[in-house]
């Protein structure tokens, strides 16, 4: 299944490895930040609703 990359195997595999790691990294970071921010905002909105208004 693996194509014969010949003498450039390390060149091609390192290019793919680094690129895919960077792509997966930015996707995971974006998803993690999104979930974290949504949870923090939900908590702040809940606090706001619980707090009795003055007057």
């Amino acid at each position, binding site marked *: 299944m693996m194509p014969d990359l010949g003498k450039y195997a390390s060149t*091609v595999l390192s290019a793919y490895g680094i*690129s895919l790691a960077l792509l997966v990294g*930015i996707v995971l970071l974006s998803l993690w930040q999104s979930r974290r921010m949504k949870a923090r905002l939900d908590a702040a909105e809940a606090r706001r609703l619980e707090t009795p208004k003055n007057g």
Partner: protein
Amino acid sequence: MSFWEYANPRKFIATADAVLPYVTGLAAICLVTGLVWGFFFTPDDFRQGSTVKIFYLHVPAAMMAINAWVMMLVTSLIWLIRRHHVSALAAKAAAPVGMVFTLIALVTGAIWGQPMWGTWWEWDPRLTSFLILLLFYFGYMALWAAIDNPDTAADLTAILCLVGSVFALLSRYAVNFWNQGLHQGASLSLDKKENVADVFWYPALVSIAGFVLLFLALVLIRTKTEIRARRLHALEMRERME
């Protein structure tokens, strides 16, 4: 319905939530198809050997590195002219994604250049302008992080974006008007004679579509995060004042 309705944060988030499953799914399909096709099912080039497979990563990443900055330029101009917060936040959201694409273009170019040109790096017009573009991405993100007032940060980063656009365009057209560089001209062209052979072109096209859709999906997700961060900041300020 007006396009400017999407400047409303609630409307933007609702629309983003509706389209994200499709954009994300299509991005995954195109990326996997383009890269698997290019890596496993295309022949080696008679001159470059198997290093031609780097093309399916390098070219889409380089295209999107420039196009991400152009998108940031457009949204920054919308912020400067119409003062829509969502457009400034979309520019902020796109910067880390564009930075990663620029990094991929530079790293894959260097890895390919070592066996093909005999050097990892050359102060060639296109390479140098791409490196400066990467520094502009870092500077843009650092400027957003350095300023507390979001409107002031949006104003100053928009100006930085305008200045950086010179290098974004330069990195695209440098090879056309500076002939002393190592970097070859554009590999992809609408002119059939100029373009790469179909056997390389079709998987590259699918991979490019994958990079475009991935960029769109990530910008939508990250813009939603920025809108929520802005709302959270406002709520926390209100809590402190009560």
